[in-house]
Every structure is written in structure tokens, then in C-alpha cells.
């Protein structure tokens, strides 16, 4: 870790790598984040409507609960679990392949701090871009919930809207951002560690990729519990 956070040799080159990683890890994840959020938002709205429909319940409950689930858990923790699979395995297998094909040795021979050069731009890119993915996730989820009103006619959009706006706390959005930044650090650093320490061939790279996803998922769930307690307890 000390090697990763040491001073970069040439800031300009590192910035170039950083922008590449933003595109590869962040921008290229927007599609899957939006798609999953859209459907999850719709499913949450339908499930809530089906399960708590009662004359005693206010009509805005569906919108309210959907928003709380999307903002507090889905957009940060669940989305990062999905990203651990997509981005985490990508990082572990990319760095692992570089290790077994001697590309990391080539960097070291040139006198480049390979850990810093390969890992730091990835950590920075994911940590900086993840709040944007969270925002996309929340927006797409709410759009999905609206879609159930427009196309499924399970309730009126006015009821959903009232619920979504009911007792809105801005702090919850910030909690989601803070949590996701922690999770982004876990995904990038843990996956990079598994990839960087690979020894052997393609089998080991595959194993490192799988192990990184499992380890990231467990750490995300564990830290979600602690962060939720710290930020909202």
C-alpha cells in the first residue's frame, strides 16, 4: 500500500492513465448501472405496492419506501456489489495478466514504481467517478418506478411523486456518496492486490479474479454495516 501511494514519477503520464481508467472503469459501467437500476426500481415499486397495499396505508407509501431503498442501500451497497463483479474482476485479471506476461517486470526494470503506476490511477478513477454512478443509479431507479405507473398503471404518478418527495433528507444522499466512495476504494485496491500478487499462469489469474470478487463482496457488506451505523446511527 505504501508503494501505491508514493509520489508518481511523471504526473502528466499518471493523469493520462487516470483519464483512461475513468473511461474504462467508470464511463463504461454507466450502461449496466442504468439498466439494472431501471429494473430494480420498477420491481421495488411493484413489490411494495403488492405487499403493503391496505386501506390503512397512505397512498404515497410506495414512492416513499422505493426512494428510501434506492437511496440508502441499492444505489450504494448493492450497486457496488455488482461493480465488484464487473470492475473488480476486470482490474484483477488485467493486472494479473500483466504480472504473468512479465509486463510488470518490464516496468520495474525501467525503474517505474509498478504498483503506483498501475493501481493508483484505478483507485483514484473509481473513487472519483462512483458518486456519478450512484446518481445515475438513483435516477434510473426512480425512472423505473415511474415506468410502473406509466406502463403498468399500478398507481398514479401523483401518488408516487408525493411519496418520493415525502420527508426527503439530503443527508441520505450524502451517506450514499460517502459509502460508495469507501466501497470504490475496496473494489479497486482489493482487486488490484489480488492481481498484483498473482504467481503462475492463466489458472491463477482466473482464481485471483474470482477471489477478488468474493473478498470485495464480503468487505463491502461488512463495511456497509459499520458505515450505516456510523453515518446514520
Amino acid at each position, binding site marked *: 500500500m505504501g508503494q501505491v501511494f508514493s509520489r508518481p514519477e511523471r504526473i502528466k*503520464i499518471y493523469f493520462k492513465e487516470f483519464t483512461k481508467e475513468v473511461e474504462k472503469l467508470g464511463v463504461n459501467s454507466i450502461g449496466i448501472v442504468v439498466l439494472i437500476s431501471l429494473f430494480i426500481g420498477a420491481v421495488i415499486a411493484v413489490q411494495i405496492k403488492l405487499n403493503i397495499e391496505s386501506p390503512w396505508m397512505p397512498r404515497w407509501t410506495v414512492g416513499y419506501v422505493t426512494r428510501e431503498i434506492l437511496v440508502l442501500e441499492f444505489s450504494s451497497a448493492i450497486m457496488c456489489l455488482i461493480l465488484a463483479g464487473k470492475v473488480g474482476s476486470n482490474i484483477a485479471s488485467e493486472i494479473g495478466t500483466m504480472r504473468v*506476461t512479465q*509486463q510488470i517486470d*518490464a516496468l*520495474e526494470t*525501467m*525503474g517505474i514504481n509498478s504498483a503506483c503506476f498501475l493501481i493508483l490511477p484505478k483507485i483514484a478513477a473509481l473513487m472519483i467517478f462512483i458518486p456519478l454512478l450512484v446518481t445515475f443509479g438513483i435516477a434510473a431507479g426512480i425512472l423505473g418506478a415511474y415506468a410502473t405507473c406509466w406502463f403498468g398503471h399500478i398507481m398514479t404518478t401523483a401518488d408516487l411523486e408525493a411519496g418520493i418527495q415525502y420527508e426527503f433528507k439530503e443527508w441520505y444522499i450524502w451517506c450514499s456518496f460517502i459509502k460508495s466512495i469507501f466501497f470504490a476504494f475496496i473494489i479497486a485496491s482489493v482487486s488490484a492486490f489480488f492481481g498484483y500478487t498473482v504467481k503462475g499462469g492463466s489458472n491463477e489469474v482466473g482464481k485471483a479474479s474470482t477471489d477478488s470478487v468474493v473478498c470485495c463482496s464480503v468487505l463491502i457488506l461488512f463495511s456497509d454495516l459499520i458505515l450505516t451505523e456510523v453515518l446514520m446511527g
Partner: protein
Amino acid sequence: MIEVKNLHKSFDGKNVLNDISATFKDGITNLIIGQSGSGKTVFMKCIVGLLTPDNGELLYDGRNILGMGKNEKKELRKEMGMIFQSAALFDSMTVFENVTFPLQMFSNMTLREQIRRALFCLERVNLLDAKNKYPGEISGGMQKRVAIARAISLKPKYLFCDEPNSGLDPKTSLVIDDLIHSITQEYNMTTIINTHDMNSVMGIGENIIYLFNGNKEWEGNKEEIFNVDNKNLNDFIFASDLFRKVKKIEEGESHNE
């Protein structure tokens, strides 16, 4: 010039290199030969600094790399170029970007100078046409030539080649050998090549070190190698029928004279 003095390296108590001393001179191609598992790659990795030996001294023109601090070592590494067995080109970069990468990282050249230097290096290895291709789009021989271009881009003092001919056909191997040999003379570099290719030995073996089970068993040149009284070395050389025949022809010629 690189001097290795009493180098010793072991892994988990198993000796891989035993008390090896050698001198690698400038401007000639120095070859380290031996069977697979004889310790050639470990020896080279120790010299380059990718592995730390247990004992011994490694002097780069009098500078002991083992006594150096992190920054000194980093500076020394800028004087090294290395060609790996697998070429080790960066997959995500084009051929041109691979060659300019060391220049961008370490030189104080302007962008125009960097481009000019990279194009010169690519022209030197006859690969100007492939400059916009990715490593995955070119052949193994071309990858090795790009690796050579990348290694010489910063005009290194020391060039290391780990089995540069592995996986290449004999004709391409000759091209690579000639290229390394001519570049060594051109830049007056200290070049060390790890190989078990006897064609390379006979072609460019100006100084040869033979390793067997981690021990240095013989040192000489390509003219002397056929007449050495060492069973292990003879087993290695004459494992191929071709070189047995070459020796017979040579013996026949000298008998006729």
C-alpha cells in the same frame, strides 16, 4: 562493464546459484547458456535487480547495485534496457506508444524529439509500418523487435535479453541475433543474453558463460566451445545432431590441413 563477484542465491534453502563470478564487457555480446533449470533466468534477474542475491557483489561500471539506495537504483535502472522472453509489450498501447513510453517517463525531450527518437528506433528494427498496431496484432518476431526498439529508446548502457529467440523460427532468430549484435556494437553497450539456442551461440557468442545446476562450469567464446573437455557442456552442445556433424566437419578440415 558489469562485474559479478561471488553471487549466491537460494530459494527455501535450495541453492540456485553457487558462488558465480563473471565479467561482462562493453561492445560485445555476452551469452549465458545452459539447460532449462540451470539458473540462467535467476542469474539475470539478480543482475538486473529483480531478485536480491543472498551474497555477492554486482558492479555496474564500479557501482555496486546491492549497496545502492532506492533512488540510486532507480537512476541506474534508467540506464538499463531489457528484452523479456515473452517480449512483455504493454497490451493496451500501440507499438509506437510502447516505444515512446520510456521517453515520456524519463527523458527531458520535447514531444517532437520523442516522436523523432521513437520513429528512429522503429526504423532501426524495420517496423515503421507497424507503428499503429497493437502487440496482439503483430507476430512474435515483430513483438521481439518492438521490445528491442523500446529497450534502446533511452540509449541504455546495459542491455539484457532473456531468451530473445524463444518461440521464433530459425530465420527470425537470426534477424533478432544480428539486430542485438549490431546494436550492441553501435551503442557500445554491455549486453547480456540468456539463451539455450546453439545457433545464437555460434552466431554471436563473443563471450560465453555456461551454467550447470547453478554453477559456472565454463567461460570462453564461440571458437573455443567445440573443444572443451567438459561432459556437461558437451552434452548440452551436442544434444543436437547438427552440431555433432559441424564438429566432425571441422575436425575433418583441420585434419586435411
